[in-house]
């Protein structure tokens, strides 16, 4: 009787705590200094997540359509000390509206981007630097050739994406952390929670690491 109770209990405790030295940190969009919602319709804007009315763009949502993208870079190096290895990394993408099935594509961005980032430019300071292909679309130049994830979205809610490999690449230094770009390529749209409007903290990156 005791064994019947204790064995599952021990297993449950192991699952919950993992290795005794493993730690999990959660970063959100609030921790990020680099984010943007770029759009071919507003090629010079950093925050063009939603086309609100003629000539008016506002990141009320991150409404992804073909030609629009969301960029985000988490400061992983600030929260995970050296000498560890990444055991798991999950990225929470908050979907707030999806009228019909869409496929979200997640690619690692390549190279620096910064102030004035837009559909046309990686940055405009200290000088203007264009994307190789507008919209950060250059494969192997602006973004990784292969998508890190292709997520089928059918409804609202949190989409959990396994990004362990990407985070490990960044943490190890094998690839420079320039963040991710999220796009869709098929007709239609999907709305994601905006980190630059009323609600924040919905874009979570959960990283579990342990000593090497």
């Amino acid at each position, binding site marked *: 009787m005791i064994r019947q109770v204790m064995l599952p209990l021990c297993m449950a405790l192991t699952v919950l705590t993992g290795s005794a030295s493993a730690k999990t940190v959660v970063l959100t969009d*609030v*921790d*990020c*200094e*680099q*984010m*943007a919602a770029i759009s071919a*319709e*507003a*090629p*010079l*804007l*950093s*925050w*063009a997540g939603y086309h*609100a*009315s*003629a*000539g*008016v*763009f*506002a*990141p009320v949502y991150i409404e992804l359509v073909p030609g629009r993208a969301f960029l985000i870079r988490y*400061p992983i190096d600030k929260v995970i000390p050296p000498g560890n290895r990444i055991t798991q990394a999950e990225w929470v993408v908050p979907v707030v509206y999806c009228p019909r099935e869409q496929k979200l594509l997640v690619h690692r961005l390549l190279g620096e981007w*910064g*102030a*004035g*980032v837009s559909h046309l430019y990686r940055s*405009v*300071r200290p000088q203007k630097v264009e994307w190789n292909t507008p919209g950060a679309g250059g494969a192997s130049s602006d973004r990784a050739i292969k998508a890190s994830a292709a997520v089928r979205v059918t409804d609202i809610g949190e989409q959990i994406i396994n990004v362990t490999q990407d985070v490990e690449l960044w943490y190890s230094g094998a690839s420079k952390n320039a963040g991710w770009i999220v796009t869709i390529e098929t007709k239609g749209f999907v709305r994601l929670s905006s980190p*630059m*409007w*009323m*609600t*924040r903290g919905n874009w979570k990156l959960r990283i579990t690491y342990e000593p090497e």
Partner: protein
Amino acid sequence: MRMAFGLLGLLLLIPGQTAGENLKLASATEGTIDRLVLVTTAPAACAAVSDTAGLLAIGHRTGEAHVSLFALNDQGQLATDAPLTLTLPTPAAFEQKNHPLCLVFHPKKPLLYVWQDVEIKQTGVAPDANGLKLNHLLIYDVAKSPPALVRELARGAEYAIDNQAGAIALSRSAGRLYVPNLILDPAKPTTAASLGYFNLDAEGLPVDADQKPTDKLAFRITKPNWALSGFPCGMSYLTLENDAVVTTNSIGTVTWNENNAASPFNAVMQRSFLGKYYNDRLAAHSTLPMLYGSGLGTNETWCMEHVGGFPTLTAQRATIERASLTTGPLVLSKRNQVALAGSDRVYVLDLNDRGRFKATLMRTRAPKAAAIAYSPRFDTLYVAVEKVK
């Protein structure tokens, strides 16, 4: 009235907690702020300084006078305790009390521009028969004593009335004067708002395309605009290079850059949403491409880089413990600091070389401080306070 001249004494370093670059600035004991002039007056609504004319103007929401004008001596101190006062004109038999919402000095000419409105019965409505006669914009020649009203204009169906806030601003070239609280379609007034401007001649007075005096707006936004919805509209105005403008409406910033044909308007919300609308106020760094903002009635201020007025990357937010802000931010350009007032205090935050907040906060007592102004010439911060009973 009294003034106080503070010497730099205690620099209060309050370690801030950081989440990313966001800061929580804790309260501390009172200190003193260098070159701070507290001006005790009737309840203040707005303030402005003219380094050219050597004047400090304070607009009052209540009291006998609408505007108090203090001459400054060559040290930037009040030359006299007794200001000249202005009573703003209203139409005959006008029942609602009028008061100034914003004061702006011309950078070179001895002109004071005053934007006025009336006490609120219902926010931002189309003017009635009496309201149609109210001139919102008053232009005074402050070289004369007493100051002379040289122009009064901005009246009629396109100007919403009963607004609690509204700002005016001169373009960088002083060739335009931007005005707030316009009704998008005066023929069918709704909550759809608009903004516009007057063209000014070399003397700082409104003119038409033929350089003749006019009381008509040179331009008004006439297309429905999602970012301009409800009143007040244009509670702060920042004018940048190439006639780019950043203003405010229900939430956050609204950038209006007519040089960007594809996307001239961009609305972004930088602050935390704490249940309040129509309370954003702005400032711009004098040399760095940085915007600063705060929400009146909140304890939060923010800064964000911009390109041509369009916000980019992310905002840095700083919350000030136990503060309830009554003013927007004000950049103290000579000191690379930002000042704000609220909760009977003046707060000063240091900026780093990128124009972002450091985790340092100074504060000093300033009873019911509700209007602040800064003189780059004298590197002096003026704060309108009320007499402590």
